[in-house]
């Protein structure tokens, strides 16, 4: 494994506080192939599914979303939170496309560098808190990590995402947005930067579309700071709501005999409406330039 020189340097510096504070190995134990834990996890999901069918049948179908930024910390996590905690409680996955998780360090040339998939937000939080609480509190990193550790376990890399592999562990952990995403597939991917969009589209080409499942890949250009991430998260949720509504209309209209009853826009399929929805959304959010393609998982 190649080691980023900056990272090697930092490791030497940051290794000591890690040991006493957190025990990541316990969390990163591979998913055990025992039937019991998933069974234990099923009842809550059934309860969750039963409530809407009796009370609010309109949200029985939800699009599954995926948010992607460079480090899976700021923009994608803000959007993840927004989508997962919205009224619709969308199933959400989130990833980063960078080679490492990079967080701002004491100076611009000394970023804090972590590995994807094996470092939890909690570890990062405790480590940075121990290093220089004042600094990381003031630049908002600790607040961000605190938010993140309440959403899911740790940053994941898009390229290591085993598409279609079951994701039951996050459900057992109670990660936000994990409910409904257990199949490991999504309908829509939002990236937060053109670079990430390129990386995602290229990675999907590289995978060769083993699942034969279409996926809409959007890019919403958001600058990497806390304020813009908030705005961007709101905008992404709005787009997601519009897409989800269209998808639900399609399912409603195309049901048993619905096709005959629907008319105009409702008759158009969800996929057909995507460019229009995006155009409408772009008009509302002209400062977040959008990009879109229809790719394959």
């Amino acid at each position, binding site marked *: 494994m190649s080691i980023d020189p900056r990272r090697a340097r930092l490791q030497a510096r940051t290794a000591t506080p890690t040991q006493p504070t957190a025990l990541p190995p316990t969390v990163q134990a591979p998913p055990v192939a025992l039937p019991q834990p998933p069974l234990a996890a099923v009842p809550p999901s059934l309860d969750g599914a039963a409530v809407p069918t009796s009370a609010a049948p309109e949200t029985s179908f939800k699009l599954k979303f995926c948010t992607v930024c460079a480090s899976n910390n700021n923009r994608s996590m803000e959007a993840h939170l927004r989508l997962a905690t919205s009224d619709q409680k969308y199933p959400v996955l989130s990833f980063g496309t960078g080679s490492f998780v990079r967080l701002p360090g004491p100076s611009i040339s000394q970023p804090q560098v972590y590995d994807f998939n094996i470092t939890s937000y909690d570890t990062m939080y405790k480590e940075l808190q121990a290093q220089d609480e004042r600094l990381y509190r003031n630049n908002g990193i600790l607040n961000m990590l605190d938010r993140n550790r309440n959403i899911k376990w740790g940053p994941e890399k898009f390229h290591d995402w085993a598409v279609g592999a079951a994701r039951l562990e996050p459900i057992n952990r109670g990660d936000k947005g994990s409910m409904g995403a257990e199949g490991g597939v999504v309908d829509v991917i939002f990236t937060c930067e053109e670079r990430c969009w390129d990386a995602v589209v290229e990675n999907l080409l590289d995978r060769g579309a083993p699942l034969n499942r279409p996926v809409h890949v959007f890019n919403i250009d958001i600058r990497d700071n806390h304020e813009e991430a908030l705005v961007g998260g709101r905008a992404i949720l709005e787009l997601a709501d519009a897409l989800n509504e269209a998808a639900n209309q399609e399912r409603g209209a195309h049901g048993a005999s619905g096709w005959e009853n629907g008319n105009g826009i409702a008759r158009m399929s969800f996929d057909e409406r995507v460019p229009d929805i995006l155009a409408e959304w772009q008009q509302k959010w002209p400062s977040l330039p959008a990009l879109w393609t*229809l790719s394959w998982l």
Partner: protein
Amino acid sequence: MAASEQSPAEMLGQLEQARKLCLADPSVYNQIVPGIVPIIQTAASVEIRRWGADFVAEVFATPALPGHQKEQLISDKVMELLRAMLEMPTEDVAVVKSAVQACASIYPYVFRRVISHPDLALVWRDMTTIKINILQRLDVAPVPIRVCCIKFLQKVVQIQTPGQIADPRRPEHNETSLALVPRNHPLLPLANLEAETSGLLDRLLSVIQENSTDPLVIDPTMNCLAVLIRTRPTISNKILATVLNYNPLKSAIHPMTLRTVITVRSLERTTRALLRFIIRWNPHHPMAPKIDAYLQRLQASKTAVFQGAQNLKRPAEPTDGLDDAKRQRLQPPRRFPPMPPPPHSFAQLFTLTEDASLTQFDVKVLPEEMVSMISSALMQHIDSKSLDEAIEEVRQRYQMVQDAAKPVIPAAFPTSGDDDDDYDPELLSGPEHAATSISQGVGADLPQPMPELGPFELPKPPPLSSAELAVLSEQTVAHVFETALSSERNLSVSNQKLGINRLAASANDKDSWLTLMIRLATRAPAGLEMLVQSQTNGDMLKLELDDSQLASLQQINVPNRIRQLLFDYVLDDWHHRLPLGITWLTEEWYADKIEPLAFSNGDVPMTKADPRTPNYDYWSALLFDTLIPRFDANDHKILIRFVSELPSINRGILSQLKTLTRDPATVKICMMALQYLYLMRPPVREMVIDTMQEIWEDGDNEVKNTSGKILKKWRPGFVDRAVEKTKEEAESTRTFPNGVKVEQIASE
């Protein structure tokens, strides 16, 4: 599980539970799938059928289950289920969509299983029926299904094209492809499959070939081609060639709606992503240079397309309402209407509004108490800043009126010192142009009136003498030319050659400025009326211009001044600026052709256009004469380009070209240029052959040798005849003075 009295919601709950079990432990799939299939098959509820189709698609797509286990899951029942879903005429779109997805996933496993089990005729028959069913939907199905059909098509092409055999001894490690099918398979005849695949590939690529602009068809097609290009070498070149012929910017026609912008960007970026992926995957791909060129071209035309369109990049300053507080408030100072021309009344002095009804309102009709009440109430609420501004305005007006009351010196001359004009040639042009300051000093000694005198009519300037006019126009031309050259963007950077169709002032770059200059020079009245006159007089054949006409071409006027500057500019760096020179000469030629027609008021039909192009002839000859001595042996490309792109070639130019043969170093490029003209410009072919003949006649032995070879092809027999003639001449002079007869023979 199959209890029919259960409500769909309850059943879904149970099914979901079974699915979770499978997700948690893939090894239970082979127990659960056979149990679930009949439930879905018999289910009436759309919800259950949707779930079922999704589930089957998931089962055959999941990476958790190894290929051989998926093969074992294939049964008549599963195939029947998929067939039923596809064949039911009123089936729900979502169900069909997932069923097609499942078919795309299951196809490789069915294919593989049939390869090893030639007895599974039933399964293969079902699969074939399904295949036909899906392919029939390709053009007519609703978009979501159509998209999945594209993927199915791609999967079939992928499977039915020979792939690479990684290890012939261990077939289970090889990916499924036509290469695994034995020659004499009873169900899978190789020849038929190959033929079918080639047809399917054409079908898959047809949307790209037709240059469709629907992103919902193009994007998924482009995005599924990568794997074919990468793993199927036999068809990868065909696919790449098709993609390279695709123009994603076709639908970018201004004005673009936001939807069009999004669509065009999507098409463009998707195409680019695919090609960039191929280049990254294999930088030494045989088609890499072509791909690179395509990407560059795409970038250039994209810039051109989106230049005028609204900029989608984020603005320098965020425009959402959040950070209003951070932004400076930039309110322009209040503007008051100017006072009417003198004499002024006090009312006018204090009137700061343009509202006519307000100005006509007489306050005296109000009782005094009311006025004082209103004004004191108003005074409390008035904004002190705007009051200050109003007071300041009135003060200035009063000052102005007072100044106007002083005796004024009548201004007989333009007040050059305080000239408010934006343009000052003395400041802007270089010292060499500033030599004559025409109006300076004329009124400098006179006391200057104050500037704030209210309306003031400038007296008419004295008429300029022709010398002054010449100097001023020269300064103007030089100034505009400098502006043109100092514009930011370079001519060579311009992305798209619009040629004669470009609008001169379409952008603020060098290219458009220079075009503007060229047009100013060429399209200005160029004194071509004389041509019309001579034409109407009927002496069309008199192609040579007389002296007075020639003189008018060299006369110093604005167009000629620009031409001279253009000429100097091109010459300065002729290697790089020759394209500009060609553009200029083309414009000259065009203007020469068009202008006489304009003067003739349509009397002369277009077909009888004047063959003379005086401006073009003069300047092209000048440019050519000047350039010819500068060409050296390596300039063949530039020379050929020059002679090929000139709008018209005449004997003068060819005779200049001929002079290149005087230098042994440039003989070759001269020959190349002439050969090019011979091949590519048939109208001048005769002239070229004549020129070659002259070269042969005038040249030394080496030149004779080279040109002789070419002439043998162009004018067969000429060289032999000429050689014979010279020989006989030589002989006759040597032996007998019998020349008369020899000459007669030679001339026949």
